[in-house]
């Protein structure tokens, strides 16, 4: 993608590329799940990765976050190569994520779940915890404050002391987002955040994602099958199929790409069904 094609975000300070991926490949046994994919994510943008089931999207995320080791390729976050880092190191470097299959800490309440997300940013260590030093108290307060802030941010403030597993599905997804945000990421990767949400809840989610970018200044990259969400939210879309990138571009470009229509969207999808939304509520108006 050329710099010229990149949408102007109107935020001068926030220009440039935050994540740059080159030739990322993952081979499972004989199966090439992700094949030589390049991707650049502009700072403070909302971008999406879409593609048919089994296209390799989740695997792509897993490689970025260090859960899988790429078979080849590089991942650069603000110039630092992330390949080979452990997941916790990737998080410390500034990438947080949510999971396609929700993975919350079952025995913790919402607040604690989010506090865990703060782990890598807290200064207090083992000795501080034992001796209850000033640094410890500061850290704990920070963790708690950030957790509450994030819970409020995603709208779960009232469930602060509720066990995570007792929350309804959609709220659990939001809780995962709050937990990811608590790591103070530069970039957050959301894997199908709208799955299991009804259209109304998806609308709320949409504005939440915009606020993540606008209010927190965090770059968002998401995987989604909900085309209304993707088309209205993303500034840039990459399409994978059978592990390879088959298209990329602005939403309307992708939507009208015949390859994408055939492999992914299905008949008649492009014409307008998803399009009308975008014209109505494009460009972060809800923020």
């Amino acid at each position, binding site marked *: 993608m050329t710099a010229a094609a990149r949408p102007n975000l109107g935020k001068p300070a926030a220009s440039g590329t935050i994540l740059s991926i080159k030739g990322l490949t993952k081979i499972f046994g004989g199966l090439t799940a992700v094949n030589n994919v390049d991707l650049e994510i502009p700072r403070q943008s909302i971008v999406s990765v879409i593609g048919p089931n089994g296209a390799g999207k989740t695997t792509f995320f897993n490689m970025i*976050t260090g*859960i899988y*080791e790429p078979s080849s390729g590089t991942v650069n976050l603000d110039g630092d*190569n992330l*390949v*080979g*880092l*452990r*997941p*916790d*190191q990737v*998080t*410390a470097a500034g990438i*947080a*994520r949510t*999971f396609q*299959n*929700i*993975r*919350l*800490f*079952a*025995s*913790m*309440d919402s607040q*604690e779940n989010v*506090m*865990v*997300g*703060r*782990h*890598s*940013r*807290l200064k*207090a260590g*083992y000795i501080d*915890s*034992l001796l*209850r030093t000033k640094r*410890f108290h500061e*850290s*704990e307060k920070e*963790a708690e404050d950030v957790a509450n802030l994030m819970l409020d941010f995603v709208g779960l403030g009232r*469930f*602060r*002391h*509720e*066990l995570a*597993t*007792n*929350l*309804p*599905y959609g709220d*659990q997804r939001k809780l995962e987002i709050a*937990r*990811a945000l608590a*790591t103070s990421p530069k970039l957050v990767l959301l894997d199908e955040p709208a799955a*299991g949400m009804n259209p109304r809840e998806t609308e709320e989610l949409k504005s939440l994602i915009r606020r993540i970018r606008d209010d927190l200044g965090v770059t968002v990259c998401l995987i989604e099958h909900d085309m209304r969400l993707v088309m209205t939210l993303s500034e840039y879309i990459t399409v994978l199929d059978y592990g390879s990138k088959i298209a990329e571009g602005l939403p309307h470009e992708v939507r009208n790409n015949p390859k994408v229509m055939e492999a992914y969207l299905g008949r008649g999808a492009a014409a307008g069904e998803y399009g009308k939304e975008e014209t109505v509520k494009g460009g972060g108006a809800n923020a």
Partner: protein
Amino acid sequence: MTAIRPGSQPPISAPDRSLALIILAVISSALLLVSQESAWLARLPSALANFLKNPLVASLVLTFFLANLLFAYRWKASLWAKLLVGGLSLFLILPWAGRDNTSVLDLAIQIGIFAALSLGLNIVVGLAGLLDLGYIAFFAVGAYTWGIFGSGQIGKVLTYFKDNSANNGPVVAVGGLVLLIVTALSLRTINRVKGKRTPVANWAFLLAALGLVIGVILLARGVVMLVAANASGLPNGINPNFFWLFLILAIAAAASVGVLIGLPVLKLKGDYLAIITLGLGEVIRVLANNLGTYTNGSQGITPIGSASVPWFNSLAGAIGFTPDQYNLFFLYFVVLIIIAVIILANMRLDRSKIGRAWIAIREDEIAAQAMGVPLVQTKLIAFATGASFAGIMGVIFAAKQGFISPESFILNQSISVLSMVVLGGLGSIPGVILGAAVVTILNISLLPSLGEATASLNIPPQVNPAQLQRLVFGSILVAMMLFRPEGLLPSVRQRRMMHEDDNPSDNLTPQDSIAGELNPENAAEVYSPGIATRADDERGGGTQ
């Protein structure tokens, strides 16, 4: 959203039981003191005296007395009453009874030791969810650390090296140091090299770790040799006042062994970890049995010294303790202090970022890692912390027994500590202490007394209660677990998870096999520490 349960339950109003608590405490204390004091017993009508002297009755009285501490902790009562009962029981009545009957003190110390062990294992198993079946090894490390130096054994070691190859000391020491530095450096580089562990890196890591261990051993050996060259034997070990230093050294030693054992194996999951720790626990014991030069092998080490504090002894003397009781009396208070510190440390760690990280990796390693929790490091901290509690108590154990041999550190002991933790309530500090107390009292007071009480009856040997300890203990274990699967005093977390505070009409209790059984969420959400971090939900490969 009304179905969502409120975050906190309104406190159930229970009657204040301060008065009951105090009355019970007074009764049980009186009973205890009377039953232990022969002078008082003599004044009682002989039937009553004989009754109180019956081993089983005496043991029950003691148990009843100790139960007061539990009541003081559990009951709703005013703080001063709780403190009064707790304080007097621990600091006055118990030592007093111990003066008349040292086995009370012995039991109390033993409970303290096991409570500390349980607290340590609780961190590893209950909080971090790592099933460790070889935990007693760290206890052994602590015990031998002091045992060797606090007895004539160190003299023997030095003499051995003096007689053999003492003049190689400098060479060995320098060699060890060099190896140590080289391997430590290479370990660091290996760790720095980014990238998941390839087999080559694995080998390199293993070799370097091995080198590190050998380096440490050589260095230590070299130092011993150097010392030995000039030593003239230490028939009674080093000055017993080094005891204090060795409390610290034992922590360090046990923690290091914890890290050493942990490094190669903590990547393993669930039961793989369990069996490896079991094996490594045995390795430590067998080494103790085989490395006779240092440990005196199967013969064991004895006598082992213990610190003595002059003013404390005179205090003990002043309140009627005989000199042979000083050490127990002294160790009792040392144990109290250590336990207090350990509890404090435990609570502080539990309620800190580390504690949260432990629980996070217990619940979901992948998610925890993705949230920035370094897996191996966090597990190592759990291992080392747990180990250090065992290490320090090992020193106390050696000083109390005056004798240690590999037989005290067998696998069964590890299992026993584990049962204390689970019985008391995984992850619950008061729970595991209670678990330790219950199991210890059963094992060294109640069950044996059953045999002693019936010793004079003519019962066929096959069904003689004295021989049925396993049966009785086993039945108690099974029964307690069936009736209180969440443990005696479950942790708040556990209670929340198991809906312990449910209304009685709840049809999803574990006993209700059909409803409970077929309830996926029950199966899925109950956290499964230890054996495998993977719960049913993950196996399903789907959302929770």
